[in-house]
């Protein structure tokens, strides 16, 4: 009874700089495992823009490029267009993708770039110290919404998966969460499916992963999981929002 569990080869064993309880680490692990399972480490290039995960290249064992804040989908487009044989993925936070990088992700999806976007949504800007993001919840306190997000002033949080799913171009758009094992298992399947769609040259793929940020939420990891499950997941509902076959 039981099974073995070990670190993926595509993942380095370098300790990460992420805060205790930050689930970036869980997502890194899954991306590493998927790349191992698909055997594509030698043909993969990762693109990490600015955010807590800008140092992602330290934690993987394959080629990587840094992009400016919000521009990873464009960098990935450049790579994929001149080297369509490479697997290219971006690893972006919500401040990066849903704010400064909105045009880039929408147009990469709309052109149907055969790249994969791993999109980490923790409803806040992490690296810069906890500012409000487009995904910050109504009433959620951050350093730039000290009295809670005022939706009458800055609008409602942005649901990226739903937004991108409205585009006509075929794509694989899914949202999962990484806050508990039962969600993490589904998240892993979605990430693998996204990479497989890319390998088949089928469509653009994006997996939004609801994640926790104990440090900037000002909660323990345990309470962060609770808050994420009771608040975030009700607003950011998991599910496969768009499948290329639907076209």
């Amino acid at each position, binding site marked *: 009874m*039981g099974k073995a*569990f070990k670190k993926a080869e595509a993942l380095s064993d370098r300790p990460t700089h992420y805060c205790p*309880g930050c*689930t970036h*680490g*869980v997502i890194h692990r899954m991306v590493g495992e998927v790349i191992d399972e698909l055997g594509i480490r030698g043909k993969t290039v990762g693109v990490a823009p600015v955010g807590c995960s800008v140092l992602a290249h330290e934690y993987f064992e394959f080629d990587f490029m840094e992009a400016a804040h919000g521009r990873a989908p464009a960098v990935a487009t450049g790579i994929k267009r001149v080297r369509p044989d490479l697997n290219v993925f971006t690893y972006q936070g919500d401040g990066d993708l849903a704010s400064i990088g909105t045009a880039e992700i929408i147009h990469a999806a709309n052109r149907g770039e055969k790249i994969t976007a791993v999109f980490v949504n923790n409803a806040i800007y992490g690296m810069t110290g906890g500012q409000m993001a487009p995904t910050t919840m109504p009433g959620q306190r951050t350093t730039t919404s000290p009295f809670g997000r005022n939706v009458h002033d800055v609008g409602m949080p942005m649901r990226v998966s739903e937004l991108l799913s409205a585009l006509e171009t075929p794509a694989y758009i899914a949202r999962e969460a990484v806050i508990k*094992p039962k969600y993490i298992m589904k998240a892993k399947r979605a990430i693998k499916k996204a990479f497989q769609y890319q390998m088949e040259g089928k469509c653009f793929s994006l997996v939004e992963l609801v994640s926790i940020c104990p440090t900037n939420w000002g909660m323990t*990891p345990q309470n962060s999981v609770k808050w994420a499950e009771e608040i975030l997941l009700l607003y950011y509902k998991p599910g496969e929002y768009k499948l290329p076959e639907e076209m």
Partner: protein
Amino acid sequence: MKFRHFIDIDKCKGCGLCVIVCPKKNLKLSEELNKKGYYSALQKNPENCLFCTSCCIMCPDVAITITESAEEETE
């Protein structure tokens, strides 16, 4: 089939997520600090471990591994 559950104490940041998700409530945070100043996770009672990998899956630092060794399970 013999499994061995292992927590790399120096990689653990004491976040406690594994403690929450263990179905047997078999994990806790130690009283001693690790090298980085965290109270790292450890097993209460190794016999109770089901090797179900819930903790491994949840751990953001991939600090928990389960290795398989060939020799028979001793009673």
